[in-house]
């Protein structure tokens, strides 16, 4: 056991042991342990195998950033072992292993490495045959591809989203972020402070600092009710107008902040040398986190690579943790010894300057670090902590418009943000001394506060003390390789150099060709080294090379948390319950539920046929409430419709109903309906179910330009519609208590009446979609059920039958009525439909007029006609079957169905304009390829003289 005594182990609760398994072996850890810390405590350092060479890999940073420490959970691939807490019975497995973690058959890839240089797959796997890639090589590569395994049986999880708002969002609760948030909140701002870690403090929580500092900040923080603290919450991106996703477990807080302070800290960088990826080699921050957060001893005997004070502090931490520090190696030239160095010497730690790690070697199978070579001599050790420098955490700042630069003087990566609502504090702004970081917080807060209108004095940013140039490791390719730059993608120094030799010299090309930075860590540990290598190889400066664009998200985020949970929108007519009671087969049409037919599924065809016959021979009742219903009111109402529709409406008499056809500016048909003039200044207009939302919006848009004196009201939900249709429709209505005279003379075809029916205020229109005598009753929706009941009762003696959408479609087809969107497409003109009758020749203007005139001049190519397929035809084409002329497609069938009334299959179809004459024969290609000849017939297959609907 590598456990250290309390107080080390701030995150774990030793009174709560937890049992879990890794690779089938059972392990024990404590509540608060991460998978990686619990395994490390038990001496299990290897966590996974690498992407390409299947080398053993373990803890690198303890931040959960990279692929080395990704493990497989039963229902969650690619889980960060360094961050994910253990739980009782959790089953954890290693990823990307062929066999087991211990015995990975693909470990042999490490030997074949020289056969697999960068980009090799672009130059190979092509032969011998043209389809060899698809048939042989790709399947083989796909088997090797990927990391974790997705559980296709994963149980459903609940995710949700909330919306947060604040004056100031501070990202990162390290020394800088804490002091910034506190300063702003103490000034009265409404502040949210988030940090991905379970505790506040950042480096103060694991670094070698005076505990009083964190204690002081914490006590001030707790006194502030207007500061909302969200720990365990990742700010995973910055989007336009300060819109930031804060991810707290399975919850996404979509957060709008007026001002943002990014105190996201810095990212420690690994050193590049042969076998720098061995388990046991870790960043010094990882060792400190293991010690202070989890009370885990990171090794027995350590070599410390230190090119800065953090490295020296780590050495002291290791000593305190009972790790013997064999040697501290400082690659910097000997300078004046700081207090830390003195303290270390005082504790008899050998310190070697001007030297560095040249190569490391591992135990059998590279399963753990065994020794390192320094200045030609080998030193045995099982731990190497690396502290040679860091980069500011550039991801969020860059998404917020920050530009990454490189200060050749201090050898530092720098970030500059444009003037605006986003500010930097702490290490991300370049500070590396604790006091500088703490001081930078209030400074950033002051800037934000003044922008928020608080009286705050903005101090000029003082340049941080640490002007001393950073150490820069000189990167030279090891002749034997395995000097990794990108651990995720198994990329070595020579791979990047070779890419530039092949001409991939731009950093984005290097990235795409080598895939450097494209793995789970998204370049956190490779970007700077890559820039330096490419700069070296192409004779440019690191500044010129730069780094690749930092795209969101900052860290991996589950699709579940992004998707959240959303109920599926459904709309119901006021008669929904009535249909259910009548055993209707309800189906969705857009968001609406509509009855397709009434009855059981097994007798559907029978039911539909009976419904059709009921309408043709008796009377039927259809719920048409989903129809769009618009009311146009105002002195200019007539003029408004004149401009929008193709027919004349200004001169339409009150009490009359007119068909209306709407075109877009291109002259294409986009909707149709009827307009009932209720009063001089009031029209009641219907639109098709699917189009009404757009039609309504378009009306408002046009009038935003025209500014006519009209008001457009969408009554689609407010009013319901009942279509009573069939030869006996009049008898049914006359049997109802009403002040409307339904007689033919008093209430002729294409007229409308207002009145009361069965105590319900109604707007009745005589229109015919079915081709039968029809009265369409519209009424306020809350009264529709009453009206429905009354009509059903009055209709019973006449055999009235409610009918559904299926019957309705056949009925309209028999009558040759078109359905917009089915019988029309995006370029259909009225001429193509033979709707010349519906287009006013007198009106000076209506939308689309100019275009249809021009398109008529350019020449019409197709025409919508009726086709009839005699009963007993062996093969019947389906919808969308092609109409051919000389073997070439000239049109297609838009609607087809069997007409019980005509006892034949009838269709609407586009044919070549020269074939439009009745009697001419066209060729239709059936689904199975058979060619059929069919005669062109009139649109209105049924009752061409309209005697029935106008009776």
């Amino acid at each position: 056991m590598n456990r250290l005594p309390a107080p080390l182990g701030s995150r774990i609760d030793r009174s709560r042991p937890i049992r879990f398994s890794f690779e089938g072996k059972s392990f024990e850890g404590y509540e608060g342990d991460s998978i990686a810390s619990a395994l490390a405590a038990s001496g299990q350092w290897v966590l996974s195998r690498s992407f390409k060479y299947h080398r053993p890999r373990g803890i690198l940073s303890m931040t959960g950033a990279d692929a080395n420490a990704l493990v497989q959970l039963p229902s969650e691939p690619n889980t960060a072992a360094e961050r994910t807490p253990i739980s009782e019975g959790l089953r954890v497995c290693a990823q990307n292993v062929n066999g087991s973690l211990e015995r990975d058959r693909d470990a042999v890839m490490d030997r074949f490495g020289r056969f697999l240089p960068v980009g090799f797959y672009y130059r190979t796997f092509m032969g011998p045959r043209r389809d060899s890639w698809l048939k042989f090589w790709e399947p083989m590569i796909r088997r090797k591809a990927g990391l974790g395994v997705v559980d296709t049986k994963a149980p459903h999880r609940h995710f949700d989203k909330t919306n947060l708002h604040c004056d100031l969002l501070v990202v990162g609760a390290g020394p800088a972020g804490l002091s910034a948030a506190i300063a702003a909140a103490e000034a009265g701002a409404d502040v949210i402070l988030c940090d991905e870690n379970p505790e506040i403090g950042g480096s103060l929580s694991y670094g070698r600092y005076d505990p009083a500092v964190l204690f002081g900040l914490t006590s001030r923080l707790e006194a502030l009710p207007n500061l909302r603290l969200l720990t365990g919450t990742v700010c995973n991106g910055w989007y336009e107008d300060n819109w930031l996703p804060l991810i707290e477990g399975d919850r996404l807080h979509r957060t709008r902040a007026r001002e943002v302070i990014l105190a996201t800290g810095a990212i420690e960088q690994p050193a590049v040398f042969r076998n720098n990826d061995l388990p046991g080699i870790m960043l010094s921050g990882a060792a400190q986190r293991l010690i202070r957060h989890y009370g885990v001893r990171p090794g027995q005997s350590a070599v410390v690579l230190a090119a800065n004070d953090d490295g020296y502090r780590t050495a002291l931490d290791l000593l305190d943790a009972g790790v013997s520090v064999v040697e501290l190696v400082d690659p910097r030239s000997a300078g004046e010894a700081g207090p830390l160095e003195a303290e270390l010497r005082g504790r008899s730690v050998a310190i070697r300057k001007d030297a560095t790690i040249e190569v490391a070697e591992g135990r059998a199978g590279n399963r753990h670090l065994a020794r390192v070579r320094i200045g030609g001599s080998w030193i045995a050790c099982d731990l190497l902590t690396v502290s040679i420098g860091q980069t500011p955490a550039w991801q969020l700042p860059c998404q917020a418009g920050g530009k990454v630069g490189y200060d050749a003087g201090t050898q530092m990566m720098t970030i500059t943000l444009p003037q605006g609502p986003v500010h930097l504090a702490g290490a991300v702004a370049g500070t590396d001394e604790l006091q500088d970081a703490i001081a930078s917080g209030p400074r950033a807060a002051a800037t934000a506060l003044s922008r928020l209108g608080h009286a705050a004095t903005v101090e000029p940013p003082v340049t941080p003390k640490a002007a001393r140039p950073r150490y820069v490791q000189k990167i030279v390719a090891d002749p034997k390789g395995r000097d990794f730059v990108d651990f995720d993608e198994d990329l070595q120094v020579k791979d990047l150099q070779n890419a530039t030799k092949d001409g991939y010299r731009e950093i984005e090309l290097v990235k795409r060709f080598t895939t450097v930075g494209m793995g789970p860590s998204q370049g956190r540990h490779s970007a700077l080294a890559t820039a330096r290598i490419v700069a070296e190889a192409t004779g440019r400066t690191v500044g010129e090379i730069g780094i690749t664009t930092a795209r969101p998200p900052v860290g991996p985020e589950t699709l579940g948390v992004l998707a959240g949970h959303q109920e599926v929108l459904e709309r119901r007519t006021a008669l929904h319950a009535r249909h259910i009671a009548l055993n209707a087969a309800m189906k969705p049409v857009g968001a609406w539920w509509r009855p397709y037919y009434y009855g059981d599924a097994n007798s559907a065809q029978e039911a539909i046929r009976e419904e059709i016959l009921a309408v043709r021979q008796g009377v039927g009742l259809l719920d048409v409430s989903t129809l769009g219903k618009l009311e146009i009111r105002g002195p200019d109402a007539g003029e408004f419709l004149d401009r929008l529709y193709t027919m004349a409406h200004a001169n339409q008499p009150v009490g009359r109903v007119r068909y209306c056809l709407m075109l877009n500016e291109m002259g294409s048909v986009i909707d149709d309906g009827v307009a009932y003039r209720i009063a001089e200044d009031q029209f009641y207009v219907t639109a098709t179910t699917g189009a009404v939302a757009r039609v309504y919006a378009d009306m408002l848009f046009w009038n935003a330009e025209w500014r006519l004196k009209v008001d457009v009201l969408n009554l689609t939900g407010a009013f319901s519609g009942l279509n009573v249709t069939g030869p006996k429709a009049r008898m049914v209505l006359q049997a109802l208590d009403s002040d409307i005279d339904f007689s033919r003379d008093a209430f002729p075809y294409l007229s409308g009446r207002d009145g009361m029916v069965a105590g319900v205020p109604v707007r009745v229109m005589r229109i015919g979609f079915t081709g039968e005598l029809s009265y369409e009753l519209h009424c306020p929706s809350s009264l529709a059920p009453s009206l429905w009941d009354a009509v059903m009762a009055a209709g019973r003696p006449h055999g009235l039958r409610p009918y559904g959408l299926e019957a309705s479609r056949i009925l309209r087809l028999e009558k040759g009525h078109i359905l917009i969107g089915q019988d029309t497409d995006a370029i259909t003109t009225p001429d193509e439909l033979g709707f010349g009758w519906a287009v006013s020749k007198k009106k000076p203007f209506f939308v689309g007029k100019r275009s249809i005139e021009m398109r008529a001049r350019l020449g019409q190519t197709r025409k919508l006609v009726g086709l009839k397929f005699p009963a007993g035809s062996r093969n019947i084409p389906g919808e969308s079957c092609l109409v051919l002329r000389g073997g070439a497609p000239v049109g297609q069938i838009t609607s087809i169905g069997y007409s019980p009334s005509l006892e034949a299959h009838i269709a609407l179809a586009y044919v070549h304009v020269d074939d439009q004459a009745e009697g001419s024969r066209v060729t239709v290609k059936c689904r199975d390829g058979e060619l059929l000849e069919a005669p062109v017939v009139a649109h209105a297959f049924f009752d061409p003289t309209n005697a029935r609907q106008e009776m």
Partner: protein
Amino acid sequence: MTAGAATHIYPFVPGGAADGTKLISGAVVLSDLTGKPCFGLKGGGSAAWLAAQGVPLPAVNRIGDHRGMRVLRLGNEDILFLAENAGETLAQIKAAWLTAVAPKGYSSWREEGWAWMRLSGPRLVEAMSGLCALDLRPQKFGVDDIAQTRVGHIEAVAFRSPTGFDILFDITASAYFARAVAAVAGHQHRGHP
């Protein structure tokens, strides 16, 4: 037009379109006020006529009070009366309007087109933050403010009521809305037991 003998059936009453859909209660409470007295005018002449009746009109997107009714100004010519406890007053205005001669605006039929629901309960704030993206913090959104926005992913009008938030939306989406609120409340509950 008057209703006479026929009975009004709203989505959540027996026989209504949302019949069988449960209204959530507990930490979050959703109640249905759709049947309560409500009447609105929209279109040219509406504001002038109401002003002439002595109805004080608030600014657009603000709420005024008139003899126990809440007067919502949804647009220059779009005014809505909600008379939860002042049915008579509303009936008088409605009667006056019906008999008046134009110009007098036009009915906006909100009493038929909109569901009127009330969200309340101890977890109201969390629930609203899950349903609506708008900044509804008290200092940003007062008692007389109107938000024409999106609630539960559908267009809605939201404003404060003594016990929580009142929400007006497309009546045909009533069943969906009840489910959406229940789902959000459920998540809230799961999220913070």
